[in-house]
């Protein structure tokens, strides 16, 4: 099981019941499944956003992998997704730490998916301490939009 972290704290994954998540390789090879269910797309963090533009109007969630918290590519991918107008849910999944929550939210992520093990070490209060991410930042002051799509 995994935990979904948002501004209000920990919750169970509501997507698991609502729809499927397809890997990028599958989607590129076989196309997206033809069903009416909601679709999610899994992106590795070396994905090329331009390559997946065509898929985006069919998916309502993009999940970007964080293999290591020290690898910041995911932040730029989320930003790029928002830049090209993706308005669905964007989720960071994997090794993200509470101290990165504000960065993730400001880059365009809506939520973080962490493992139960990570959630027991880095507890809910440690994440909620960063829920005030939307308060003014230097970048806001300098006129950098944080949700360009919205």
């Amino acid at each position, binding site marked *: 099981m995994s935990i979904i972290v948002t501004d209000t704290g920990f919750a169970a994954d509501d997507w698991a019941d609502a729809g499927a998540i397809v890997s990028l390789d599958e989607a590129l090879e076989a196309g997206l499944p033809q069903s009416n269910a909601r679709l999610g797309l899994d992106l590795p963090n070396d994905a090329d956003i331009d390559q997946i533009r065509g898929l985006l109007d069919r998916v309502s969630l993009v999940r970007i992998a964080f293999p290591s918290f020290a690898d910041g590519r995911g932040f730029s991918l989320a930003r790029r997704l928002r830049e090209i107008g993706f308005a669905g849910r964007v989720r960071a999944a994997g090794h993200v730490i509470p101290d990165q929550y504000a*960065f993730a939210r400001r*880059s365009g992520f809506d939520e973080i998916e962490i493992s139960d093990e990570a959630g027991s070490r880095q507890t809910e209060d440690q994440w909620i301490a960063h829920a005030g991410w939307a308060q003014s930042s230097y970048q806001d002051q*300098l006129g950098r939009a944080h949700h360009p799509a919205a």
Partner: protein
Amino acid sequence: MYSYSEFDEGYVRERVRKFRSQVERRIDGSLTEDEFKPLRLMNGLYLQLHAYMLRVAIPYGTINPAQMRQLADIADKWDKGYGHFTTRQNIQFNWPKLKDVPDMLDALADVGMHAIQTSGNCIRNVTADHFAGAAADEIEDPRPTAELLRQWSTDHPEFTFLPRKFKVAITGSPNDRAVTKAHDIGLRMVRNEAGEPGYEVIVGGGLGRTPMVGKVVREFLPKIDLLPYLEAILQVYNLSGRRDNKYKARIKILVHETGLDEIKTRIEAAFEAQKKHFRGPEPSLVAAIEAAFSQPELDPPVMSISLDTPVRDPLLESWIDTNVSEHKVPGAAIVTVSLKPIGGTPGDATSDQMRVLADLAERYSHNELRVSHEQNIILPHVYRADLPAIHAALREAGMATANVGLISDIIACPGMDYCALATARSIPIAQEISQRFEDIRVQKDIGPLKIKISGCINACGHHHVGHIGILGLDKAGVESYQLTLGGDGTQTATIGTRTGPGFAADEIIPAVERLIDAYLGLRESRDETFLEAYRRVGMEPFKAALYSEAKAHAA
């Protein structure tokens, strides 16, 4: 000078509070050492050879007397009574205890200072020409831009976990004193044909194990486009920079492996996208920053001393000759206080010396000091008439060494004495060279010469751009010093060329002496500097001086 806005103040305090919590969570195990490491690095805290080291930012090298006094107090309270000014316009404290660091950061915040992003794989403290706002050759003061960049890069949501560290330098003068071509991004303030201000943007310079001179990616970037353009460069780097090998992770390698044209195309494409999502700062914010750097009102008294006043103290005269530079206002001057006493540690200042510097800045330099990347302190706005008094006060504090720009004005990294990565000592080599050429008349006869020393391949001592560069390596457990010649960190940036095999610790000083003798023998006149002579005659005569004699000795 810029002072913290309410926003800055709130931000820095919050940041200290967060760091306090991170230290606590490290201690209670919520954060693993791996997870804590980048967080402490982003707050300037390194683990060194003997202890933690705290690196405090002096953004674009500008500091006021109250801040300098606070650094002195911090040195007394939590360190051993001194600090070390670095080649990136920072100050390092070498002996803090982990538990004291949040208090030290609070003490810094009290005077509008911080240690944010002085290390880690993020955008580092932005450096600038240390004569900014005072230099006679300046087109425009680069510090308003540097302050804008400080704000933009602080806690940047997208660019705080980059493949590797990222350094930006800016100059507003055609004579580049900020080594812009050896930075990940170098900015030179220029004017276009219509006379509008903008920047030349240089990318992919850097020293370290693969030294490279930066390349121009934009000859003229209008001022207004700076932030979205930098966002574009950083986004391209964050997504495509190598993460498989730490030694190949800097942007210089990406530029090199991808090719300049392709990189330019990618940056321009990203820039088009960024522009749409960048409203730009409120004009009032930009105006407030610019106003903060307006030149102090200088009203020099009619000069009571001039260079040709006959009765003068020869020590004063010698010091004026080397340590005083031309100011943009006639009758005013820029003083460089040498932190390179003969036999001393380059860049070290005691807390008492810091207080003397603060007093002098208050009394004579319109409340401003600068830290130079050459590890000296600058009094940027003094009156020529006050030079004798300033010199006398510096003499009393042991800071009147008249050697700026000369052979004993050496840049040296901490090396084996402090640094965990070092492969050799560098400070003792600097000390020995300065002792060997102690006589100031000899130094003056040799003329302008930059010796730069690094204690390992990481090149923090910038040896690649020293006229004479010295790199300390470890050869099977023995220190070996490799020489490079002809390096240059200015607008004519050049990476020095290796002379050949290295020298043992007890051979390196005689080797430097042979280089100097060779230069003195072959220069066309006293006006031909070491670098000019090297450029004219090339490596051969120097090589001959270095190695044929060594062989003769061995035989």
